[in-house]
């Protein structure tokens, strides 16, 4: 079995009387792309927010390499190797592409005391940023101001920033949202490359993309896990078809 990096055990999150997540179990392994599916309001965002530390769970535990990290906040989780991207593009729009990724890379070795050192002269940081830009397919765009990139490129930049933090676990919240078909195909190719060396959780609405990249799929409905298994099992599951795929049937 592959190395399990991040595991959610019985995660529950209540907002008042509403259980946005109830007893959710998930396991992310290196080399595996795990997709999280579900209709709007199923609790996917709540789940990813708890895993990234943006939202504390009401009950349950989160383990990273076996260690309980439930009490860690977002920046601590980032430091140990859990990176996330956001559904709504969340970059530094006034900065260049390189500076976006350089800041991300600098977080691994912050050196705040070196106040007389030019940050651009710290080659380890700059190189890490450039490598992430290359891997995310943004080479040649380093000097562009991030806010002027196309929507698809901004989504790529989101991922490049996570890569620049050297994250071992990628929590990707709808990286394909709002993308055209060409851009989607590019992103799918990127995800296929990324999962080889990392553990990925992909929250996504685009069914075709999910079935093209996922090794494992968990379907959530009303805050609970309905079914979890390999794509073939999910595709053929009557429960899933009933709850989520609806009248459209399976995507064959």
């Amino acid at each position, binding site marked *: 079995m592959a190395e399990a990096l991040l595991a959610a055990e019985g995660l529950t999150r209540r907002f008042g009387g509403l259980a946005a997540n109830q007893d959710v179990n998930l396991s992310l392994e290196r080399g595996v792309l795990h997709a999280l599916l579900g209709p709007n309001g199923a609790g996917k965002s709540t789940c990813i927010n708890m895993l990234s530390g943006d939202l504390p769970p009401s009950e349950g535990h989160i383990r990273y390499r076996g260690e309980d990290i439930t009490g860690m906040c977002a*920046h601590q989780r*980032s430091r140990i190797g859990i990176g996330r991207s956001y559904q709504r593009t969340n970059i530094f729009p006034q900065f260049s592409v390189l500076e976006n990724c350089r800041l991300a890379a600098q977080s691994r070795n912050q050196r705040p005391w070196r106040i007389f050192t030019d940050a*651009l002269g710290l080659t380890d940081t700059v190189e890490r940023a450039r490598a992430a830009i290359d891997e995310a397919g943004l080479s040649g765009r380093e000097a562009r101001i991030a806010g002027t990139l196309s929507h698809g490129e901004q989504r790529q930049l989101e991922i490049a920033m996570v890569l620049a933090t050297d994250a071992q676990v990628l929590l990707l919240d709808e990286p394909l949202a709002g993308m055209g078909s060409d851009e989607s195909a590019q992103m799918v190719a990127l995800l296929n490359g990324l999962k080889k060396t990392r553990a990925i959780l992909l929250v996504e609405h685009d069914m075709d993309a999910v079935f093209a990249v996922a090794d494992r799929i968990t379907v959530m409905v009303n805050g609970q896990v309905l079914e979890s298994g390999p794509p073939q099992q999910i595709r053929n599951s009557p429960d899933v078809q009933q709850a989520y795929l609806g009248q459209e049937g399976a995507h064959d």
Partner: protein
Amino acid sequence: MNSRLAAMFKLLALAAVLAFPLIGSEFYAELVAKILVLAIFAMSLDLLVGFTGLVSFGHAAYFGVAAYAVALLTPADNPALLWVALPLSVLGAALAALVIGVFVLRTKGIYFIMVTLAFAQMAYYVFHDTKFGGGSDGIYLDFKPSAAIGGFTPFDLAEPLHLYYFIVAALVAVYAFLTLLLRSPFGRVLVGIRSNEHRMQSLGYATFRYKLAAFTLAGALAGLAGFLYAVLFGFVTPEYLSWHKSGDVLLMVILGGMGNLAGAIAGAFALVGLQELFSDWTKHWQLLMGGVIVAAVLFLPGGLAAMPARLINRLKGESHHG
């Protein structure tokens, strides 16, 4: 090309400031010295407002704490030692900022503005309503700190010309320090926090600690300005900590253009210069001042610092058309 032009302009401005007391009258030399001290104050606030995105409306507290520190450190019958009084005053201001920062940095946006103001008002009333700082009358600083090192005295702050150049040196040092700081890894993080603090956290930065460090540092530099101000005028009053003072320095930063150190200096010159000019004309000078500030906000986005670039663009635009 453009940055070279800017560098040349800054050097020229520095040369003018250096030459000024040799040509101008003593009155105007003291006025320029006052502006230079306030320029240090404005730069220290710009570190928070312009670069970290923290709009502090109580920055005079740290200015005032250091001013009182030097007054209280000066014995009644002889001068304090500069090399002791200066670091202690700056440290006192930094400590005040550190303690207040721990509380105020838990808030954001409009609440941050209100809470910084509230703490500054508390500090104001501590000095205003208690005896140890002379109450509402303040304290006279009968002796300017002595710069003696052993038996040797390199300069004498009681000498107006020496004090003037000491202030110029402090301004240049603060400008250089902040310029270096802002290109360092630390400075880059501050600018990232201004742009998108939430993302900085998710990238692995403990942003609270960075903001607290920036707040403390800005307090220390405001303290340096307060120290110089007290030494320059020879007395301190609770007014140094008042919200007017906090508002004035905020106006300097806005007028000069937030997030630009040279702009903060220009803002100090503009605000104090206009105050002097208008109060010469009429006793209702604050009305005129208000009009200028409204006009600046409406017609000068980016403040004075953005003016050269706008002028150049306009000239270029005209030569294209013509």
